[in-house]
């Protein structure tokens, strides 16, 4: 990732970048795409025991069009792959994807005819959470990593000329 201080606009834009990142990372609207047993673990993370709302990402959206973060929770089969691709395409920019659990990361134990070997074969992924299923602390750690990534995101493209 490029250093945000390389921005062409100097002090004004770096402050703008920082403010935008700060705003985005604490207002992550999530869309949980739950297909398997990791969903139980997601529920415990999202509910009051571990409480994702503390980190500003507790707001679940029930349509991908309103969401910023796609949580792919569980095994994705080849039959389901077009659905996941459509859901990803429906999300508006900016969007981030989290692969939750061993199956979403790599296919997990299912190395067979039916299962996609990791959702990064279908859509780009920002954070991978290993574990079968991951502990809630692992999930929170990963989501804080995602927040750091969002905070550091540069917006130089806003000040560059379009290449057509």
């Amino acid at each position, binding site marked *: 990732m490029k250093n945000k201080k390389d921005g062409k606009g100097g002090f004004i834009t770096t402050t703008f970048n920082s403010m935008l990142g700060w705003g985005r990372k604490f207002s992550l609207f999530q869309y949980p795409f739950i297909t398997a047993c990791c969903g139980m673990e997601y529920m415990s993370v999202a509910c009051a025991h571990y409480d994702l709302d503390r980190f500003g990402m507790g707001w679940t959206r029930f349509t991908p069009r309103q969401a910023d973060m796609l949580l792919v929770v569980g095994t994705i089969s*080849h*039959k389901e*792959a*077009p659905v996941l*691709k459509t859901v990803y395409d429906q999300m508006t920019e900016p969007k981030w994807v989290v692969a939750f659990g061993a199956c979403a990361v790599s296919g997990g134990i299912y*190395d*067979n*005819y*039916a299962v*996609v*070997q990791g959702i*990064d*074969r*279908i*859509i*780009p992924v920002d954070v991978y959470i290993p574990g079968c299923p991951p502990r809630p602390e692992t999930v929170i750690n990963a989501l804080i990593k995602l927040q750091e990534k969002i905070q550091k995101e540069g917006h130089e493209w806003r000040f560059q000329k379009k290449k057509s």
Partner: protein
Amino acid sequence: MAISKEKILEDLKQKFSSEILDITAQFGDDIILIKKEALLDIANFLMEDPYSFTMLLDLTCVDYLGEQQRFEMVYQFFSLSHKLRLRFKARLQENDCRIASLTSIFKNANWLEREAYDMFGVHFTGHPYLRRLFMYDGFEGHPLRKDYPLRKQQPKIQLRK
């Protein structure tokens, strides 16, 4: 009006003497190996009083690759009134893997047979809608056959590198 397991097996042996190839028992369950042509007749016979095997618990297939009669259909029947179960098996040859459908007797045989067709490629004659149940349209082959390549995948959409 209880009827014993021994009596049922005795009646079956008497009625279908030429169709029943073998009767064994394993873990307390009786296993009856039959000719595949006799399946519908036997199921119809067992539906009636006093046997009333009115429930098809499960229907599945086993692939014995390399044997002359490659596929083995397995049917689990259950009698609610007598609390008895019976297991029927019928062997099919690879070049003629078709067997009569039980959909005319048991409604739930519809999806069970579609599953067996999807996974093993067994054809059920008389099935009203023999289409793949689990795999998608355009999937080639039958994944639970032993000669299906172990890790062969057939993606529906273009995968990223």
